């Protein structure tokens, strides 16, 4: 083939490609300018876990180990302990509480089984999704990272209302 037909072919290809690209420019934009703009997450998004407290601020978890038993990737580590003080002063809602509650995000697959298993509604998935760290050991989150009273929520997300037309849905353009 001659060099001339080569040039013609590639020019045609460029024009074809660019015409698609240029046609998109006036259309509505889907890119989120993260981290300058917050991402919108679905209400049932499964982000970093939250350990909940009751109205008196006592931890709801009773260290029953059911979440650890349900966890398919074996990433929940709990040490239970007793807190025999009067009810109001306790750390948790019950005498039995989790002295140590760790989740290893190096292993967690965000399946939500722990949330399903919990009989006390003590653990849910939160929305924090920025979990990357510089060392692998930092992926191990302790109770201080997980408690709803202590976990810092990222400013980089907003949660969609349940009736909102959630934009991450696949759309035919």
């Amino acid at each position: 083939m001659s060099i001339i037909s080569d040039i013609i072919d590639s020019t045609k290809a460029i024009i074809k490609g660019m015409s698609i690209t240029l046609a998109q420019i006036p259309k509505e934009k889907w890119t989120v300018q993260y981290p300058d703009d917050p991402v919108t997450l679905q209400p049932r998004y499964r982000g970093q876990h939250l350990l909940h407290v009751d109205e008196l601020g006592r931890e709801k978890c009773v260290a029953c180990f059911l979440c650890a038993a349900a966890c398919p990737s074996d990433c929940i580590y709990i040490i239970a302990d007793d807190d025999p003080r009067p009810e109001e002063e306790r750390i948790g809602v019950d005498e039995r509480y989790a002295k140590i509650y760790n989740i290893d995000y190096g292993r967690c697959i965000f399946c939500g089984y722990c949330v399903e298993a919990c009989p006390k509604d003590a653990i849910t998935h939160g929305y924090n999704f920025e979990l990357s760290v510089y060392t692998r050991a930092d992926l191990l989150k302790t109770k201080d990272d997980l408690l709803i009273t202590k976990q810092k929520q990222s400013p980089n997300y907003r949660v969609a209302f349940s009736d909102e037309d959630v934009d991450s849905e696949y759309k035919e353009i």
Partner: protein
Amino acid sequence: MSSESIKVTINGSDYQVEKGARLIDVCRSNGHAVPSFCYYSDLALQASCRTCLVRIEKMPKLQTSCTITCTDGMIVTTESDEIEKARRGMVEFLLANHPLDCPVCDRGGECELQEMVFDWGGLEERFRERKNYAPEKYLSPVVANDPQRCILCKRCTRVCDEWMGEDAIEAGGRGVNTVIGTYGGWLNCSQCGNCIEVCPTGTLLDGTYRHQARPWELEQTITTCTFCSDGCQMSLGSRGGEVMRAVARDRYVNGINGEFLCIKGRFAHPFVNHEERLRTPMIRYRKGGKLIPATWDQALEFAANKLRETADAHGAEAIGVVGSPRITNEANYALLKFANEVVGTSNYTATDRFSLAPFFESLGAGLATHRDIRFAKTIVLVGGEPEELQPLTGKQIRQAVRNGGAKLIVINSRAIRLQQQAAQFIHIRPGAEDAAVLALADERFDELAAKKLGVDASELSTARGTVLDTEGNCIIMFGGELSPAAQSLLAQIPHAASTDKRRFLFHPLPLYNNSVGAHDIGLMGGAHTASSLLGAAGAEIRALYVAGSFLPDHLRGQEEALSKLDLLIVQELFETETTRYADVVLPAASFAETDGTFTNNDGLVQRVRASIPPAHQSKPDWMITAALAQTLGMDFNFQMSASTVFRELAERTTAYNGMRYPLLKDETKPVQAKHAIAPRRDLADEIEALRLSIESLDETAEKIMGTPPVGHELFKPGELTGKVPQFHLLAAGNPKPPDVLISPLYQITIDAGLRRTDEAVAVAGD
């Protein structure tokens, strides 16, 4: 029980059953499931839970199958709408007062009530009334109590009374207000924890394991208890290299002991993960210097060189090898092989309190299993204190008498608690047990014996009469008080007195978990005993290789003996009086970390299984011995496998011929060693020697009065409180607990003669 057979029809199928059989057992063994709570075989009937209801034709109402004895032609239905409705109703009643918070209950995951509710419970509670509330509390350092969860099956009160004879836990109050309680708010008992084990719910819980772990997380390992010669089977629950608990629940293990364990077996396991465990091999380079941590290679090299030096300078006989009645058969065998084949010395022994060699040499009848004891007709107990030192035997004796109607003859210098069960209690002067044996064996000596024993001659002839009147099994038990000659004499009694109707069986009461094994292996047959070996230290004995430690008893009076040695090699778990003079200390693995076998006082060879990896750098004893042999240039060819050691051991030990690990696998079918029955022989010499020694007994010695409580003083304050910090806080509302705490190190490093009245000699860690 007569063997007459009768016909019972269950759900339309006919079965031939033994007359007198319990209906619930018959249903179950034929595959007709019947739920139950309060029924517990071999305990008094209770019939309080009513979950075992069945329909029996011609009876007006549904019947509790746990109390019905089968009769000929009985027609039974175990499944129908009516029965289902009744059972569901019963379970609903059981839950009416039961809190619905399994997540905080330690029994969750292995709870019989949970299982019952899965099968028979409703989805919803219909009761809207307030439930009874009672706060959780501790009944003792080891028994936690949550009264609300009780379903009043009264298994706890029955085992406490029937197994243990303690009667420390009882039901009080009436109707819905019935609670399980104690006398004085505190469990004043031997703290065996059997009530915890049999409780189907989370009402009685292990205080030391409380809120520590969940059952499904634990790796359950079936193994043999290391604390006494009964050899109870138990399941060690471990998590992450730590032994969390020891249980005998029938869902995990079904050994000779059923669900029975004593305080030692159940609660004294924390020594395994104790922080004072030896961590590395250590060498004392200079006499009087310090033990310096070393690597295994260095330590073995050092020990081997020194052994070679000693052998070169003084000959092989200058080296002594000392095993232990607490370590496995495999470990003792390796030591014996080391003595015979590597060193070539006849100076080997084991650190037992007394030797059973004379008994086994004259053995006139087989060994009784614990089951035999339960169904014996007559039991003769000479010396010993089984309730404290062999608690399972104690329990079996009590049940044989209480539930089986056996006659018990107790010959003891102390009014031990079992004498309450005895048909006859012969209270003798301390140290005169031999005289009793002589009188039992030969009526010519009644007068002499009675005089020395401080009893009436008729008491002795009555006892002999009871034995000779027995139809069925007569079991003879004896403790360590007997002299070797008396042991032989006793062992020969069956030859003179066995008949078709009457069978004799023996049940020796050695002190340690593998006393019988150490004897069987042949380790007790060396030229020395532990004490005489110490006596010869520094003279003809220049070097000792010791597995375990000498007992304080052996060291008493010759405390300095060990310092006179040129070389002392010790493999131990902890620092002890023996390691104090050791030149090389090698860290050994505990029973929870090693594979092997123990032989119990029934002669049953039972498996010991590793539940966790050896702590720190420790190694199983037999591996250490093999490694030392290797360093000395001899390959034992054990291939790092305990089963290889056992195969070799079984080949070379007559009583164990043919045994292999696969054969010992099933704890429900234990295998008995075949101890050779000695033929009848002339005992004139023994009798004469006994007579002479008895003649010289003091006739004025005071008898010991008073019944010592069982278990109370066996354990000294120790480690356990550290494991239950909440105990101190909870105890605030309780009466002050008596000092019934456990030192896990008790039997490992401390051996105060195992007698309550002896002064305890703390060796280490206490």
